[in-house]
């Protein structure tokens, strides 16, 4: 990692990014795909781009995934 990695990550603006509203509207579907080991990013590339670029939505994704994967069977 060089000294510009943080700047590069900050400036990343993926044109596929669907934004917070659309990402959150399908978050439950996306999370179930991930939890099932399926390629959610392939089905929802715009959501994957958003979760990579939006810190708060990324945290919500991680939290929901943790909640559903920690459920007792």
């Amino acid at each position, binding site marked *: 990692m*060089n*000294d*510009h*990695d*943080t*700047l*590069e990550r*900050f*400036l*990343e*603006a993926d044109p596929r*990014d669907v*934004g*917070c*509203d659309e990402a*959150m509207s*399908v*978050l*439950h*579907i996306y*999370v*179930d795909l991930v*939890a099932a080991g399926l390629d959610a990013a392939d089905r929802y590339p715009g959501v994957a781009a958003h979760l990579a*670029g*939006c*810190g*708060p*939505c990324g*945290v*919500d994704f991680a*939290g*929901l995934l943790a*909640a*559903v994967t920690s*459920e007792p069977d």
Partner: protein
Amino acid sequence: MTGLELDDVAHQAADDAMLAILAKLTEFRGESRFTTWAYRFVILEVSSKLGRHYWRNPPVPLDAVQWERLPDRLGLDPQQHAETTGIIAEIRHVVDTELTAHQRRVFIAIVVDGIPLNALADKLGLQRNAIYQVIFDARRKLRRALVASGYLEERGVRQL
């Protein structure tokens, strides 16, 4: 946040999430497990509550405008003083000349002062997406400017 304060926020989030779930119950279309759909409301309520909670004792107030902290936030090397100074000057120029007053306030709060996005959304009475779009658009403008000024290459940073 710990102890009773944490419990209080958790209970409020749970109560509000339950109300949201009951209100939206007829909209569940079976595209995911029901529990995943329902947990989503809990997660979103927690995010919202934490954003509001930030202002009880904010480590950084709104409009603090801490430009001096930006090099550290962006991981710029203090040893490369001339380059860091140039990049920050270019960012300030874009912020001053290409953003509206509202966009400038949002950018400075989130990027320069490091205020959490959910907290700013709560303070300004805006949706999270409205804040995010300001930052997203600013990123593109900043990249264009930093490429034009020679600090960045089209894909990556020019190594000096």
